[in-house]
């Protein structure tokens, strides 16, 4: 019995290679499709991961603790207090890289030439130096240092608009937490260029202490207590742990998706668009396979007639055809995953440089995008791409396999 199964699989395998050219064309089709899908998916994932990483390190980390009402109506007077103890407890949680505190509010940056609305972000310079990409994007002057001081780093677009240079002074005017208008003088310590007009024209960073003075906030108040994780996937677990801490009672503990909904949305939308195109591509590939197998069944009607005449059961014949399709699929999908995997691995190491395709900077919801893309390959992607294409082809093979035994023996043998 086992033997006859072995014989069946031998016949199936050999039957595929009888028409070498056709099989090669079909295999190429599958390999092309699978490879492309893999490369695209991995490129996309790589972009998303990088984007998320940049965005959250610039802002509130993977998990952010904030006043419960802040997200609905952001305002400087909604903050959390007594953050010291909470930070200590969070810092020792597994997987936490560090915490970073932010004090944020709206403001007006005024010079003799004019005024620009801006987001005033009070930061802890050493936390930023360790965790945020911004200090690395300083193009003139230096980053912030110390915790007090009326110093700021501003974006290149803002500097241009207001004709500010390193060392220039400007006035920052805000509505403080009591609703009163407060103005303070400030000096430009450095100019950064993040690569997006929005950020570079709108964001200024000052030391947290200065921001608290500006908005009239108590000593350890924070707008955001950001938690940067080593592995972003653990954020939901970490968020849960934090929300159970007594020091976090009454505050909102949110994963980055809630804090940066635009980034999350972009990723979802882009993923969907990609999926649609990939699905269309796979559909075409599947259709080719389907056609090929159907055709080959049609070609070999006589051969099947002989087999059935000799006493082969229809089930056995169907099994043979199904096996043939299976082998074809396996070879194609495996080949595609291999080729795709190699390509992705190569680009993962060397980077995929698209700066030749576009000259200007790219940004998504204000966060800039690097022009050297690094695709990201995970076992999950391999599994999903390989698995879905394979199962689809298997399902498709059922129809021709079923049909193979439906011939009228006497007719085909004529």
């Amino acid at each position, binding site marked *: 019995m086992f033997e006859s199964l072995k014989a069946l699989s031998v016949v199936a395998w050999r039957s595929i290679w009888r028409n070498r050219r056709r099989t090669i064309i*079909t295999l190429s089709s599958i390999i092309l499709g699978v490879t492309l899908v893999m490369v695209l998916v991995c490129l996309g994932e790589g972009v998303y991961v990088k984007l998320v990483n940049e965005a959250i390190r610039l802002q509130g980390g993977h998990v952010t603790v904030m006043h419960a009402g802040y997200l609905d109506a952001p305002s400087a007077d909604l903050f959390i207090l007594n953050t010291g103890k909470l930070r200590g407890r969070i810092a020792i949680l597994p997987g936490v890289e560090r915490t970073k505190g932010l004090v944020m509010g709206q403001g007006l940056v005024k010079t003799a030439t004019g005024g620009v609305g801006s987001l005033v972000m009070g930061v802890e310079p050493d936390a930023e130096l360790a965790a945020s990409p911004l200090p690395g994007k300083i193009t003139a002057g230096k980053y912030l240092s110390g915790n007090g001081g009326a110093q700021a780093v501003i974006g290149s677009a803002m500097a241009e608009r207001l004709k500010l240079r390193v060392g220039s002074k400007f006035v920052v005017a805000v509505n403080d937490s009591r609703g009163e208008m407060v103005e303070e003088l400030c000096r430009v310590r450095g100019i950064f260029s993040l690569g997006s007009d929005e950020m570079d024209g709108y964001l200024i960073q000052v030391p947290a202490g200065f921001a608290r003075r500006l908005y009239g906030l108590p000593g350890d108040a924070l707008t955001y207590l950001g938690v940067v994780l080593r592995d972003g996937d653990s954020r939901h677990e970490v968020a849960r742990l934090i929300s159970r801490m007594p020091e976090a009672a009454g505050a909102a503990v949110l994963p980055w998706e809630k804090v940066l909904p635009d980034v999350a949305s972009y990723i979802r939308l882009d993923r969907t668009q990609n999926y649609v195109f990939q699905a269309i591509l796979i559909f075409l590939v599947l259709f*080719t396979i389907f056609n090929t197998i159907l055709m080959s069944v049609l070609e070999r009607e006589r051969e099947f007639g002989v087999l059935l005449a000799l006493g082969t059961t229809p089930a056995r014949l169907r099994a043979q055809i199904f096996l043939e399709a299976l082998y074809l699929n396996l070879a194609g999908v495996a080949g595609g995953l291999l080729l795709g995997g190699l390509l992705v691995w190569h680009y993962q190491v060397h980077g995929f440089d698209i700066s030749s395709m*576009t*000259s200007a900077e790219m940004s998504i919801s204000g966060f800039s995008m690097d022009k050297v893309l690094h695709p990201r390959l995970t076992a999950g992607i391999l599994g999903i791409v390989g698995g879905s294409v394979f199962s689809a082809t298997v399902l498709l093979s059922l129809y021709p396999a079923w049909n193979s035994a439906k011939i009228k023996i006497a007719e085909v043998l004529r």
Partner: protein
Amino acid sequence: MTVFRQAWRNLWRNSRRTSITMGAVVVSTSVMIFTSALTIGMVDDMIGSITRTSIGEVQVHSAKYLADRSLYRTVNRPATIILASQKAGAQAAPRSYGFGLVSCRMKSAGAMFWGVDPETEKKAFDLAANLAGGKYLAARPARGIVLGSRLAKSLEAKVGSEIVALVQAADGSLGNEMFRVTGILASVGDAVDRNAAIIHRGDWAELFAAEGMVHEVAITSRGKLSLAVLEGAVKSASRRQDVRSWRQLVPMASDMLGMVDVMLLIFSVVFGCAAGLGVMNTMLMATHERTREFGVLKALGTTPRQIVRDVSIEAAMLGLIGAAMGILIGAVAGWYTQVHGIDTSALASGGLNVSGLRMDPVWHARLTAKTVVVPPLIMWVMCVLSALYPAVRAARLDPVKAMAHV
């Protein structure tokens, strides 16, 4: 005529084989048409979101305005420009811009005040209709104000809220007026969301103590005119002022589009290959299978030339019918998507911004003559070529060899 009738009958002698082959052409063609229409629609939507929302296709400013946005750099003779644009078949909206502070109860924020002509804006641009709540400005100055979505949020302002505007007026004095929110914009783009405070031109003139100041003329033909033509018409009326197309105004968006174009081209080529391979493979098999038949024909005296000719005609007919059906299906699918769109808004909150391009969660396809004609043509050519190759080979074979072919 009989040659065609013969070809037709030949095709249907083996209806299963013909159906399968035709099926390949139909599917490939329709998928290609639909995908092309979808991608063109996407790009169109992206361009539209820029030019039709509020930027327009061409803008005119005073020579140095864009560098420092100074209140005093105004457009010279805006009326002439507007007239010229209208003559060319486009709409033109004059705008004034000035910076200041808006407050609503306890909250305040910096804002850019747009002085607009509501009727023109409504006719020419989509922004006026893109409201999350309330209504756009009235035709006459009435101290109404429309706020950007994020601006309204940070001010905690709603429709009907009172807004205090504080600005540095043109004569150096402090301008101070009260407005009432008539409408709040839906999310349109970061800059507008965060900064836009739109008021009637008349109110703007009062606020800034500046009558008749125009800082920008935004012109659009809503896709009717080519950019070159429009630019030309506007330039001749603008006399050495700064005339820019949207591509120059938002180069990031323009470049992003360029990238999207390249990506879509790559996709199209890949799809084309996959589809073409499908047709080719099927056609090769179908013709190859008939080698024996050709051998018999040769033995009966048919010349190789006749065989190749007959096969070509059959393939051409098959391809034609398949392509026609493919066009039908592809066009219907494309048309449906053009009118109804694919709604993915369940996945994304509105207002996504990529380099200034707004991504619409509802996808629309757009059928053009090119999308409906080019893919079927390519598939048809593939079909005929793929039949020719094995036919020519078989026609050259020794009849006995051909007939013994298994």
